[in-house]
């Protein structure tokens, strides 16, 4: 994998699900030579106090991250689409449960 200069193994990002039904959340990263050890290291490092019931490890280089400089281009267009929010609509006086 990338980062050839680093003799400390490739980087993996770690995501932990804290309890059933909620999304996995990014908690940090580990170095590991392969999938199994990435999982093992993530368990040892990020779940020493029953912080989770499920772990994802992902090679850091597989993550495509948006660039802060592109934020306007990416996120601006949604700002003027107020009709995407329920509060945009006028409900008839007296209507209930809608």
């Amino acid at each position, binding site marked *: 994998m990338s980062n050839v200069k*680093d*003799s400390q193994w490739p980087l993996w990002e770690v995501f932990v699900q804290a309890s059933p039904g909620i999304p996995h959340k990014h908690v940090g990263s580990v170095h590991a030579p392969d999938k199994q050890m990435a999982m093992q290291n993530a368990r040892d490092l990020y779940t020493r106090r029953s912080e989770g019931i499920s772990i994802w490890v992902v090679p850091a280089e597989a993550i495509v991250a948006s660039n*802060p400089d592109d934020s306007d281009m990416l996120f601006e267009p949604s700002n003027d689409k107020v009709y995407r929010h329920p509060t945009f609509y006028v409900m008839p006086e007296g209507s209930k449960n809608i």
Partner: protein
Amino acid sequence: MENEKQLEQFEAKINADSKIEPKDWMPEDYRKHLIRQISQHAHSEIIGMQPEGNWITRSPSLRAKLILLAKIQDEAGHGLYLYSSCETLGISREELIEQLHTGKAKYSTIFNYPVLTWADVGAIGWLVDGAAIVNQISLQRTSYGPYSRAMVRICKEESFHQRQGYEIMGKLAKGTAEQKEMAQDAINRLWWPTLMMFGPHDADSAHTGKAMKWKIKRETNDELRQRFIDKTVQQAEIIGLTVPDPELKWNAEKNKYDHGKIDWEEFKRVVNGDGPCNKKRMDNHLKAHNEGAWVREAATAYAAKQVKEEVVG
């Protein structure tokens, strides 16, 4: 020109108490300061395992041994959280370790003092982890996102460290005259080096200005040191131990303790390599690092072989 606008945006974010994330533009000085501070912090966690590690096999009970093992394992974790957050600034793990080995990067001077007795193990948890907590709670609000997140995680784990140390001290202080003396001796030797952990006085600290302006640090060395003293003196009194500072006095007007002079000559000596255990700590780290090289290589080779087999198979 471009730079000036970027700097303006950066400082606006800082002033608004927003976090800076790895891909955001940041001044080179900000990046450098963070790498220096975070790596020093990471190295301290890792080197700090050594003085306590010496006592695992000599723990006075199985309970004490399990606790000490868990604490030291946490410290390894703290080091790893911090290395990872430092790496988001564009420096590799290998370079970080190299800087430790060449002496370019420092670690906390406190870990260059020997741990002579079981009471010292207690004093480390109570005082050294206690001082670290004061610093780390403040750093949860640092402006760099990955550093702040690492601090939040670390703070959650630290309070057991301090409590287990204080428990050891309390037990010894209530024990035989000899045990109490051992506890007092530990605080006598470790008190001043612990105060030095917060770094030089604000007036003499070269890095404080920008670090505060850019909110890398949220409180100054002296402010943090004072908070630690004010908290700890009461804890010592409760268990019947004395803080070894004849000039220590409650200042009702300022609502804080006045304290005696810190021996900065000693601090300088230890920072520059001339503490009681500097050489031993570094030799140990180098030895472990070098003797582990074949493990890293073997695991890499095994991973490469697996990839090959996946492709072929």
